[in-house]
């Protein structure tokens, strides 16, 4: 960790960056995102999966990089344990 030169580092003053934002996602028959907050997904560009921290509380996410109607690119993931969807920068 690189500490800033002057400010003393305290955990309570740290603000996480790129925190996942909840989104409403509807999936198609193949369990791939079809709409994101009612905007239609034009294409799923890439999909990948992360399995981490299995040694304490397992984190499993299915990520999809999608192209929305209008041209916006979004990265989404589904928390496999809870079934909730989030948007996050890659």
């Amino acid at each position, binding site marked *: *960790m*690189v*500490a*800033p030169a*002057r*400010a003393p*580092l305290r955990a309570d*003053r*740290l*603000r*996480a*960056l*790129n*925190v*996942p934002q909840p989104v409403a996602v509807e999936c198609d028959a193949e369990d791939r995102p079809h709409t994101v907050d009612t905007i239609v997904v034009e294409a799923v560009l890439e999909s990948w999966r*992360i399995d*981490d921290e299995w040694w304490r509380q397992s*984190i499993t996410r299915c990520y999809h990089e999608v192209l929305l109607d209008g041209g916006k690119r979004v990265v989404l993931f589904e928390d496999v344990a809870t079934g909730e969807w989030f948007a*996050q*920068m*890659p």
Partner: protein
Amino acid sequence: MPQRPTSSLAACVWIPLFPLRCEEARREGLTSHPTALLAPDLSRKLWQVSPLARHTGVRPGMTVSQAIGLCPTLRLCEPDPVHYDERFACLLAALNEISPVIEAGELGLVYLGTDGLEGIYGLPEKIVEAIKRTLESWNDGPKDSFHRSIVPSFRVGWGTGKFTAWVAASRAKPGEAVIVPSGGEGKFLASQPIAVLPLDPDTHRRLRQLGIRTLGALAALPEEAVTAQFGAVGRKLWRLAAGQTVEPVVGGVAPEPIVAALTFFTPVGERDLIERAIDQLIARALKDPRRIGWRVQAVRLVAEVEGGRSWLADILLKDPTADAARIVAPLRTRLEQAPPAGAVTRLVLELTAFAPGTTELQLFARDAVAAARAGQQRALANAAREIRQRLKRIYLYHVIEVQPWSRLPERRYALIDFEP
């Protein structure tokens, strides 16, 4: 390591306000207006002030608003330390033609060792004349503006040791010289004000409070008494005032040619690649510790070409420089106009001749950068303080790495309050 040449007989060339004079030389019409040069940092304070501006009450160290308040017609110039550095290097190179023993002081102050020069020029008066002729002909810019601004402002002093020569130069009228004959140092120095000594303001004030106004008055006191009052500094000052310290001019020894070479694994014909290789070689050669304090005047580039042939470029730089871009420019031109007749297998770059530069000037440039950085920090701190006062809390953050290796994006970076 070769011994550095020294000379106890010294000539001092002093061009007061050298940076400001450089600006006047390259900007038409500045000399007739009150002018000030800004400091080479972000403090926006005045660094050097022309005599015309001084008459209106403007002083170095003032802020721009204070100065404009006193003199609304004041012309402000942004500083260009690299330009002053280059002009000073040209001055050193010109004076090097007179004497091989050259020692640079601050910008605009040069000492020449004159031991042995009487064999070439004759009496000290003739040596000084030669120096003045060199200064008058030293120019590669517009002649008119140069002669209006820099030539009339130089002063020359001659004496035994650097201090006597410097005091003599500081007493000389612009464009003229003061010669202190050998043996006459004591008499000459005795009448000079104590301000010519290298004094800090506190010591200066204390000496004046003791009623000591001239070097003669200081030298008349017992050395032990001055040392008891002012310590080692006092002893040094007393010895300078009494003419007992003769600091010789210490010249530099031009380094042997510096060579950097590169052998290609496969012969290279593309000019881009060769140019990139030349850039690397120049950077490597300039970093050589022997080059410090010297500017490059002549460069030789040899390319070994496939089939046992070779290609050669000998470049003589008009202005000696330590700037890689200026060294590479004529080599690129030569490469473009007359490229090697085949693919190059090996490149050898040689810095073959040098002109005196100064490490002090490089420090000056570094100081300017450091000062600029410090100025930015101050400005940032002021801005942060203002935001906090207005909004009651700070909305400025640092981005810090937390677990940059994490597969979970939100764990990689975090924000922390910025407190400058």
